[in-house]
């Protein structure tokens, strides 16, 4: 008689074994490595690109003779209109015209009485023209003051000090342009991540069903352990991926000085991203796992997971199309509090800033409150459907108690 070997396996030990398999396989999968790598390269490349664009000037203007004195006023005027203008002194007008022809200059200022003339190769860029018009007006203004016996600099100072005072009844939310961009990137990341990892759960469930290995697995562990292990394993790896991508992305942007937001805001963004990935992944992967258990072939997965997938896509599309132009949009604000939309909309809003604390907390609380109900529901559907291979199991049948 053989001795009875010890075959005890704790609940969480079983879940851990299943999760371990998922993690091991996914980390080694070429698709996973490729997606992570490409995303990282894209993010770092995007930061570099932003740096190059913001670093250069919009135009180079040649100055000659007396117009060299206009260098400071020109740059100042350009910057008030939001442009960067580089200047360069040229010896005389002829040299300047040669430089224009060579394309080294965008415009050349030559003196003409009290004012100046702009020489260009073909035509003047509209925004540069605005700069020159403002500058010309300024010069005419100064000349008129001098003619009247006044001091142009004193007058200009008085003019510059005169400002309307705005008294808002409700202080508006100031949105930082950089944070809007981060919000968009956060939206894309969380959308991609929910989509990829959620579908991974669904195809994983069907793979076990279609290869029929599920019968062998369920002869040793319980259905909930198999489902929990799968969701946990894919979740852990998705989380790590999100943290790495978010961290490297923000880090690269800060390192290249593309982002000038504070470090705490940057860290806050990544933390919220991770929190919402976790919550969103739990909500959607539970739904995906349960629905995928209804079918036995990979071809049918798309059909069953489309309804919950629509919520992910809808949230993302609404957010990405409305928020950049109107970060305080009321509809988005309301939607972002509804658990099925929160995972895509809330992280975008949070990254853009200006979310009242009560809304941020309420969205988390509502989503967390939904999770136990989903666990119960999808656990039941999964348990009832996963052993029934062949035709698609009706959701209503799978919901019935055994």
């Amino acid at each position, binding site marked *: *008689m*053989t001795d*009875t*070997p*010890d*075959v*005890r*396996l704790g609940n969480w030990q*079983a879940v851990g*074994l299943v999760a371990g*398999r998922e993690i091991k*396989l996914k980390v080694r999968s070429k698709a996973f490595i490729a997606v992570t790598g490409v995303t990282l390269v894209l993010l770092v490349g995007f930061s570099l690109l932003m740096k190059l664009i913001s670093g250069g000037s919009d135009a180079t203007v040649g100055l000659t003779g007396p117009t060299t004195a206009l260098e400071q006023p020109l740059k100042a005027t350009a910057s008030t209109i939001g442009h960067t203008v580089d200047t360069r002194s040229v010896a005389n007008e002829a040299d300047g015209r040669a430089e224009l022809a060579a394309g080294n200059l965008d415009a050349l200022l030559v003196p003409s009485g009290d004012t100046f003339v702009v020489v260009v190769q073909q035509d003047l860029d509209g925004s540069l023209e605005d700069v020159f018009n403002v500058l010309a007006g300024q010069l005419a203004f100064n000349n008129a003051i001098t003619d009247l016996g006044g001091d142009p600099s004193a007058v200009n100072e008085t003019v510059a000090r005169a400002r309307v005072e705005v008294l808002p009844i409700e202080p508006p939310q100031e949105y930082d342009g950089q944070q809007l961009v981060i919000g968009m990137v956060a939206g894309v990341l969380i959308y991609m991540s929910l989509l990829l990892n959620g579908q991974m759960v669904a195809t994983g469930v069907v*793979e*076990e069903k279609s*290869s*029929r*290995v*599920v*019968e*062998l*697995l*369920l*002869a*040793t*562990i*319980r259905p909930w352990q198999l489902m929990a292990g799968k969701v946990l394993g894919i979740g852990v790896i998705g989380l790590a991926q999100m943290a790495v991508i978010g961290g490297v992305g923000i880090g690269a942007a800060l390192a290249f000085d593309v982002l000038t937001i504070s470090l705490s805001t940057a860290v806050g963004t990544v933390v919220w991203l991770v929190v919402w990935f976790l919550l969103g992944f739990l909500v959607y992967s539970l739904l995906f796992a349960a629905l995928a258990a209804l079918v036995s072939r990979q071809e049918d997965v798309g059909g069953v997971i489309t309804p919950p997938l629509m919520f992910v896509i809808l949230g993302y599309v609404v957010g990405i199309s409305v928020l950049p132009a109107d970060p305080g949009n009321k509809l988005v604000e309301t939607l972002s509090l509804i658990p099925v939309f929160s995972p895509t909309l809330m992280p975008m809003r949070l990254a853009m800033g200006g979310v009242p604390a009560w809304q941020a907390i309420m969205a988390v609380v509502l989503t967390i409150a939904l999770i136990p109900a989903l666990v119960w529901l999808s656990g039941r559907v999964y348990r009832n459907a996963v*052993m029934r*291979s062949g035709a698609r199991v009706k959701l209503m049948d799978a919901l019935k108690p*055994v």
Partner: protein
Amino acid sequence: MGRRLEIDGVSKRYGDVVALREMTFDVRAGELFGFVGSNGAGKTTTMRIALGVLAADGGEVRWDGAPITPTTRRHIGYMPEERGLYPKMKVGEQLVYLARLHGLSPSAAERSVREWTERLGVAQRWDDEVQKLSLGNQQRVQLAAALVHNPLILVLDEPFSGLDPVAVDVMSTVLKDKARDGVPVVFSSHQLDLVERLCDRVGIVRNGQMVACDTVEALRAGGTTRLVVVAPQAEPGWADHLPNVTVREHDGARTVLELGEGADDQAVLRAALATGPVTEFSRHRQSLTELFRSVVTGEVAA
């Protein structure tokens, strides 16, 4: 004193369809038990219930006298009728994973998988994905999956289907070895000659019920005995007057008779000799196949 696997009064219905009706039998330690019946008779359902993959509506599965639990189920080595492994997982890794799900430690699992892949001839395929293996080798891996955790009970659904003759021999040897170790082994099969050769006892199911369950010898003895008599000068009806004897066939000189209870074969011989010379007189016991056929068609209730 061994540990028995008992299936006691297990019932199961799917909606209006009764799959199992008070299914009862036991598999004793060290015994090879053959489970036969037509398709849809309830063999797979019974095995799935024993494994806890399906829930029974009534009845009990016991091992070693106690109701089977999720933990004691880990002692079962199972081969489902629907073969299944992860197609994209490597052979070695997959078997180690399955062994660990049965509660083995990482090192014990690895050791056991090495041993079984070696023994079943798939050791050199350790690092190959299962889907790259031939069907025969996939079957061997499947068998290894049922054995790697050193099971104390073996439940195999159609283990011989789709095997080549060499693999059939390997499988037979493994099953016999396991039984010799004191493991109760139950398997279903449609290959009745194989069941007859291998099994200590056989259970025949029909419509979700066990209709015959005994040793092959006893089953055959319990069945009818036929006599084949070749008497060239015998007229048709020569044996009609014999008590408890039915003539099944009469074809020229050859007559096949069925002996009922209490029939005297010597009286048949005397009657045959009375017609003239007898060139053949043989007793013909039912084969399992014949027995099966008569049992499942409901001709004979054993």
